[in-house]
């Protein structure tokens, strides 16, 4: 992982985030976060609730500002990167605009960014075909299943070709079977587009299946416990989950998370 051979997409040095600083409700959400993400890398952030994984993603996406530390995205400040439209965002809820048809939802960022109509339509069509919803362009969100809605949301995030894809538990609300299928589709999309992806998840198997590196985090204060490299070969498919190396990685991440939890339990026991 030498930094000079590849471009650094995201660089975090000594990031702290404190909510409600100076008041009684002050919470240290993140403490001394150091992370380098290469361009085109697929990184998962995993950890128990309150470990600050979503906060870290939101800091990168300039939805909130760090209290201390240095954060660069493609060599720019996050605010600059946002104005340059470097971010595609996908949340746990598909967050589609219910008054817009599927294609109009995908075209929304393009409209806001002033793309001409013909290009908007062509891009929306291409993106929807990539997520295999080419036959549903004129449907409305409520006519689609949860998995299909999330695929529209991914198509919308990719429509304007952002450099970085920020995904906050995008498949958390889906059933196991749909989730595994969406994992496969996302890997395919990642290989087609070569995007840098920051993927927040609760699911160990998902993190191991998808990413190049797994950032394991622990709570109070939110910090990075360990960064686990993942050398499982690509392309990954349904058989990858039967690979002993896959199971070893799952076990390793689970142990790391248990340690983080164990610390948490002994602390709260000690406090009564």
């Amino acid at each position: 992982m030498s930094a000079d051979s590849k471009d650094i997409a995201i660089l975090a040095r000594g990031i702290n985030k404190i909510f409600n600083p100076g008041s009684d409700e002050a919470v240290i959400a993140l403490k001394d976060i150091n992370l380098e993400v290469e361009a085109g890398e697929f990184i998962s952030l995993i950890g128990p609730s309150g470990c600050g994984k979503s906060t870290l993603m939101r800091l990168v996406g300039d939805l909130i500002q760090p209290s201390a530390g240095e954060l660069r995205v493609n060599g720019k400040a996050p605010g600059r990167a946002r104005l340059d439209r470097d971010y595609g965002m996908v949340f746990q809820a598909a967050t589609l605009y219910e008054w817009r048809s599927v294609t109009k939802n995908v075209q929304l960022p393009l409209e806001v960014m002033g793309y001409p109509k013909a290009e908007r339509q062509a891009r929306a069509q291409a993106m929807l075909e990539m997520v295999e919803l080419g036959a549903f362009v004129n449907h409305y969100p409520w006519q689609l299943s949860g998995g299909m809605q999330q695929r529209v949301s991914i198509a919308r995030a990719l429509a304007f070709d952002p450099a970085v894809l920020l995904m906050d538990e995008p498949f958390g609300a889906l059933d196991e079977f749909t989730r595994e299928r969406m994992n496969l589709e996302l890997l395919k999309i990642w290989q087609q587009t070569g995007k840098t992806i920051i993927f927040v998840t609760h699911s160990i198997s998902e993190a191991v299946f998808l990413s190049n590196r797994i950032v394991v985090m622990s709570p109070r204060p939110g910090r990075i416990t360990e960064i686990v490299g993942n050398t499982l070969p690509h392309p990954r498919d349904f058989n990858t989950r039967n690979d002993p190396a896959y199971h070893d990685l799952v076990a390793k991440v689970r142990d790391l998370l248990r340690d983080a939890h164990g610390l948490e339990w002994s602390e709260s026991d000690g406090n009564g």
Partner: protein
Amino acid sequence: MVMAEARAAATLTANLRRRLTYYSPTIAIAVGVILLWEFIVLIFDIQQFLLPKPSAIFAEFMLQVDLWLAPGERSILFESSGATFWEAFGGFFIGCGGGILVALITSRWTIVSEATMPFAIAANSVPIIAFAPIMNNWFGITNPASKMAIVAIIVFFPTMINTVRGLTLVDAQQLELMRSYAAQPAHILFNLRIPNALPYIFSALRVASALSLIGAVVAEFFGGPRATLGVYITQEASAFDFAKAWTAIMMASIIGVSFYLVVLLAEKRLMPWHVSLRGQG
């Protein structure tokens, strides 16, 4: 071609039949209530000045229709209906339009909308109809503007309050999405806030459609030109001509229901995507 037309006609009659089946219980209840009313008046021999029979009201109504259609004659009932309709409609238009406009302006600055909302909510619980005599003094008792003003004030506040709510109660993640697109405020307004407010605005307009007619008729109780429904009802009632008073009440109801239906139709056209309207028509 002929085949297609025949098929279109077939689906049309099928649609009509389905709708009739859907509404038949409602129609049955309406007919039942009117029949019951008629029989109760007959059986208990109720005096016509207490409660006239539906048939008597209907006969009086047909008399007015004949007068209205006959050349050289005039029907005060229909003239009154027209006058009251315009008062209610004018007030509805000015009040709701003003409410939406003020909401759009104040919601642009959170501070302004937060400062004005408590006053709007307080004003909304004031019985504005009590200002009717004052409006009569301001605009003149026979000037329709005095009734329009009352209606406009009554519908202004609920419309404004609901519109501000719809413009500001926007899903946080939908706003974050717009932020990630580096969207201009105008884009957020037209692509997110206004569509988000439409259901709120229409629920206000539905309430306003009923309020506007109540406002106009009750304002007329405090005095107005002879040919208005409120004055018509008070005069015929004090002359013990209750069948006539009831025809005026009937006309007021018909206008009120039509108002409501027009708002409903506009709602269906403007937001076919909304939960309450899915899979209909």
